[in-house]
């Protein structure tokens, strides 16, 4: 047996070794990084702080009592690492992009950099961690007492706590450098990870092959209960424990610290994904054999929690016992150191710093070096957390309450899970949702698991536990709402995590995120699609470079701040002086600062200097404006396209009209040439005859000359008519309008056609006639129209007893003159076309009129603001009606 002195010397030597390793690595790394230390293997080993002394000693105890159940604590993390691609990778990516310093920082950052959320997460973490640290102190103290054969537990624990605090302060708060990486600490815990694995394997092999005779011997004739526990192994408790351990590997502050914050390279996760489960397998493979051998060979009443240590001692293998002690010591110390660093970072960043900022806000002096303040607050926090753990240990010492503390802490940190997962996978998760969910889960955890764990009469009396507060059975902490008969742990998890998640989802769905939160939600959920680190870009307001520089100096230190600002200035192209406070500069500064003091605090500080309290609103408006602009543009485009469509339609119809007009013009031309051709042909042929046949008689000559003369006249008349109609239609000829007596004009016209009417034997009657009325017209032109219509009526009337009736009618505004003949008039089919140029009715027969009379008449009537229409009687006879404007109505309206 070793003497206590040698034992102490070995222990102190081991501690000194850890200090030297951490110190050397820290020093070397600051000059240039050590390659092998940045390897995935070291990363994996640092994650193995998951295996605390609770694993090292407690797992054997658990196996001795409950059989296989202990394995669940390792299956959960295994599953999480098997699925590393889907969650851990995203966490690491987000953590790197946003320079996350802790799990509280990540959650607060996701929910709009909320300080209140950060504080809540920190409080839960502290409450869950302190007992866990106490558990480590207890196991180290007990194992020390076993080895040293007694000793005062209080003072032993005190010295252990002091030593651990010293180590954590020395190597955990050397700097505030980027991403909170602690290379010295990582190196030390990697070494400890190897020591504890080797120690446990050594004890396991010794137990299996040294004490027992191999596996066959150990498992021979094993009763089922030894393996499957008293109530069957694969039940609700198995599921809940697997779930809890899977949650813990993500949510425990120390695990988050080593897995996410200390991660150097995302690719390391790929190696850790199988190497860490393999490490866990190595740690557990001999747990069952040690427990079973211990149960067999150890005396009745020996504590199974200490079999790892007492079994070698019992077999007089003190060297192995010493190794086992060092393994347990390593498990405990590495956990305590990392947990203290992780939690102190949270406390100082989210609780102390905001308070200090408030105090310092009054004095804007540079002298208040935030950097030093931050370091001191972190050191103080480490000491305080270890002190808390120590007092917890003293407070609950002697009771067996600590045994369950590991799982109680697991349930505590499991409250982070809904907000964490919701935050990185669900855009709709909101800050009120996270706050409410966490609060509900936290309170239920305290009530159903944490407080009852203190056990007998300490906080809750037996009466309280079995009958509920004030005898209200429904509120029994371990049978809430009458859920009797459940395992207390399962009961607590179902209530706290279940209601937490439910509240989180329901409240999130009922509340709206503010602008910054929406921005962060997008960046976090789409971590793999965004370029990374583009968080919270907001327009520079009244930000002053000088102030920002001072702020950076106070937090990062003078030199790093100088370097950072120089670099940013260079990027902007300014060789000297400070960079202009653009979006990019402010965002980057905020990110750099958040690497030291957390996102919420960094955001608060930068925002205050940048003079922007309502960053969110501006961003929101910007986003809204952008959307509005897009909508507006698209609307305008649509309008434009409609306009174009209409214009095209108009162009098409104009084109159509032009074509029609062109066609009409062609027709008109061909008709004119046809009409002109006939008289021309006869003139030419008769003048030819006159020229070529001198022997013609005088009589014939005279006859031919008269024909030529007649045709020339006809030609002239035709040309005059064409000229006339074109002038009338184009409006070139403006008719001088004057008052004309209707009856006089009619009588005048009848006089003019008297000759032809007599020769055609047509009887013309006038009446009924209105009293003499003045119309506005051109006398000569009206005369022309009347003669034209009358002569047409005479010419084309082939009735046996041709008659023509002329009548006039005066209404208030109009005067109409009807010329009615009994020759049948114009048929309905012809009515539409008789006003066309060169058109002749069917009745026209052999007449050789040019067919321009009616079109000219119509044009004249139009020029006199009147009209010429064909009216149909009841017996489908038709007659012409002249519409004229009443002179008096024009005078009256004038």
């Amino acid at each position, binding site marked *: 047996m070793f003497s206590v002195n040698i034992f102490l010397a070995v222990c102190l030597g081991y501690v000194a070794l850890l200090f030297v390793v951490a110190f050397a690595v820290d020093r070397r790394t600051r000059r240039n990084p050590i390659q092998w230390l940045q390897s995935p293997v070291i990363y994996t080993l640092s994650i193995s702080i998951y295996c605390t002394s609770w694993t090292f000693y407690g797992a054997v105890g658990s196996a001795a009592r409950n059989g296989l159940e202990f394995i669940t604590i390792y299956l959960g993390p295994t599953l999480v690492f098997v699925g590393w691609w889907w969650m851990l990778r995203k966490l690491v990516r987000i953590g790197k992009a946003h320079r996350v310093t802790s799990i509280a920082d990540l959650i607060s950052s996701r929910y709009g950099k909320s300080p209140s959320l950060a504080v809540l997460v920190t409080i839960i973490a502290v409450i869950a961690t302190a007992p866990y640290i106490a558990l480590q102190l207890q196991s180290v103290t007990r194992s020390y007492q076993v080895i040293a054969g007694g000793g005062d537990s209080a003072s032993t624990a005190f010295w252990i706590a002091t030593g651990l605090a010293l180590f954590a302060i020395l190597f955990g708060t050397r700097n505030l450098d980027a991403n909170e990486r602690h290379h010295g600490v990582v190196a030390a815990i990697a070494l400890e990870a190897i020591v504890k694995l080797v120690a446990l394997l050594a004890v396991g092999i010794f137990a299996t092959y040294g004490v027992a005779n*191999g*596996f066959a011997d150990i498992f021979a004739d094993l009763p089922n209960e030894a393996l499957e526990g008293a109530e069957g192994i*694969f039940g609700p408790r198995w599921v809940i424990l697997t779930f809890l351990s899977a949650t813990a590997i993500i949510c425990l502050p120390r695990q988050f610290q080593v897995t996410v914050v200390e991660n150097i390279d995302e690719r390391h996760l*790929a190696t850790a994904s199988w190497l860490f*489960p393999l490490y866990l397998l190595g740690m557990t493979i001999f747990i069952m054999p040690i427990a079973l051998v211990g149960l067999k060979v150890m005396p009745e009443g020996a504590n199974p929690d200490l079999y790892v240590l007492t079994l070698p001692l019992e077999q007089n293998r003190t060297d192995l016992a010493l190794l086992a002690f060092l393994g347990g010591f390593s498990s405990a110390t590495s956990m305590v150191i990392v947990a203290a660093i992780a939690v102190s970072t949270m406390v100082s960043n989210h609780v102390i710093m905001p308070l200090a900022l408030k105090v310092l806000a009054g004095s804007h002096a540079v002298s208040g070096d935030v950097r030093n303040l931050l370091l001191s607050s972190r050191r103080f926090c480490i000491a305080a957390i270890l002190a808390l753990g120590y007092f917890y240990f003293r407070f609950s010492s002697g009771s067996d309450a600590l045994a369950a503390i590991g799982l109680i802490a697991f349930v505590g940190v499991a409250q982070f899970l809904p907000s964490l997962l919701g935050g990185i996978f669900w855009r709709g998760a909101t800050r009120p949702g996270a706050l409410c969910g966490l609060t509900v889960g936290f309170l239920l955890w305290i009530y159903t698991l944490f407080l009852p764990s203190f056990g007998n009469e300490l906080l809750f009396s037996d009466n309280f536990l079995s009958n509920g507060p004030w005898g209200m059975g429904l509120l029994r902490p371990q049978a809430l709402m009458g859920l009797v008969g459940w395992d207390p742990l399962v009961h607590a998890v179902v209530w706290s995590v279940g209601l937490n998640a439910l509240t989180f989802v329901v409240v999130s769905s009922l509340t709206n995120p503010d602008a910054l939160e929406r921005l962060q939600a997008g960046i976090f959920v789409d971590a793999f699609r965004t370029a*990374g680190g583009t968080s919270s870009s907001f327009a520079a307001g009244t930000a002053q470079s000088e102030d920002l520089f001072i702020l950076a100096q106070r937090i990062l230190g003078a030199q790093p701040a100088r370097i950072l600002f120089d670099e940013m200035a260079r990027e902007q192209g300014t060789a000297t002086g400070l960079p202009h406070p653009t979006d990019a500069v402010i965002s980057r500064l905020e990110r*750099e600062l958040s690497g030291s003091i957390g996102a919420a605090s960094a955001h608060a500080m930068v925002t205050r200097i940048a003079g922007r309290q309502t960053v969110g609103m501006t961003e929101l408006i910007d986003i809204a404006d952008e959307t509005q602009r897009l909508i507006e543009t698209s609307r305008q485009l649509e309008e434009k396209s409609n306009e174009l469509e209409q214009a095209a339609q108009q162009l098409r119809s104009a084109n159509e009209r032009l074509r029609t007009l062109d066609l009409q013009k062609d027709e008109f031309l061909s008709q004119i040439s046809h009409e002109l051709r006939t008289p021309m042909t006869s003139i030419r042929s008769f003048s030819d005859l006159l020229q070529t046949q001198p022997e013609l008689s005088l009589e014939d000559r005279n006859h031919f000359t008269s024909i030529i003369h007649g045709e020339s006249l006809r030609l002239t008349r035709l040309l005059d008519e064409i000229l006339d109609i074109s002038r009338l239609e184009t409006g070139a000829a403006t008719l001088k309008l004057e008052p004309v007596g209707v009856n006089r004009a009619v009588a005048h016209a009848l006089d003019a056609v008297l000759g032809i009417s007599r020769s055609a034997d047509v009887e013309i009657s006038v009446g009924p006639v209105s009293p003499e009325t003045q119309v506005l017209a051109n006398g000569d032109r009206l005369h022309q129209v009347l003669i034209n219509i009358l002569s047409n009526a005479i010419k084309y009337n082939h009735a046996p007893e041709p008659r023509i009736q002329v009548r006039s009618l005066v209404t208030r505004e109009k005067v109409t003159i009807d010329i009615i003949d009994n020759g049948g008039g114009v048929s309905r089919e012809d009515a539409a076309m008789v006003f066309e140029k060169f058109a002749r009715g069917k009745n026209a027969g052999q007449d050789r009129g040019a067919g321009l009379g009616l079109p000219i008449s119509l044009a004249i009537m139009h020029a006199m603001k009147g009209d010429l229409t064909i009216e149909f009687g009841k017996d489908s006879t038709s007659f012409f009606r002249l519409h004229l404007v009443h002179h008096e109505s024009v005078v009256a309206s004038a």
Partner: protein
Amino acid sequence: MSDRANLQLRRRKIRDRSIALLLLGIVLLLPPAANMALIDAQVGDLPFALAYVFAVWVFLIIGTALLSRPLLASDDSSKTPENISPEN
């Protein structure tokens, strides 16, 4: 099919396999499937339930190890892992 489409398909397959492995692990290690291991038999020198849990565990480790490299290679969002670190 183009080379690019082939590559996409291969990547998706690898991710699908990683999901499948995870689901398989969850199903095999939890009840009700795990209850099938509760038979009164021995595998070598070990009780069946114990051997079963460890066998699944080893299977998961090997599966994850085999998939870890192809998965990394399939990650098109970070060709160089440090490019996401803001200081670069």
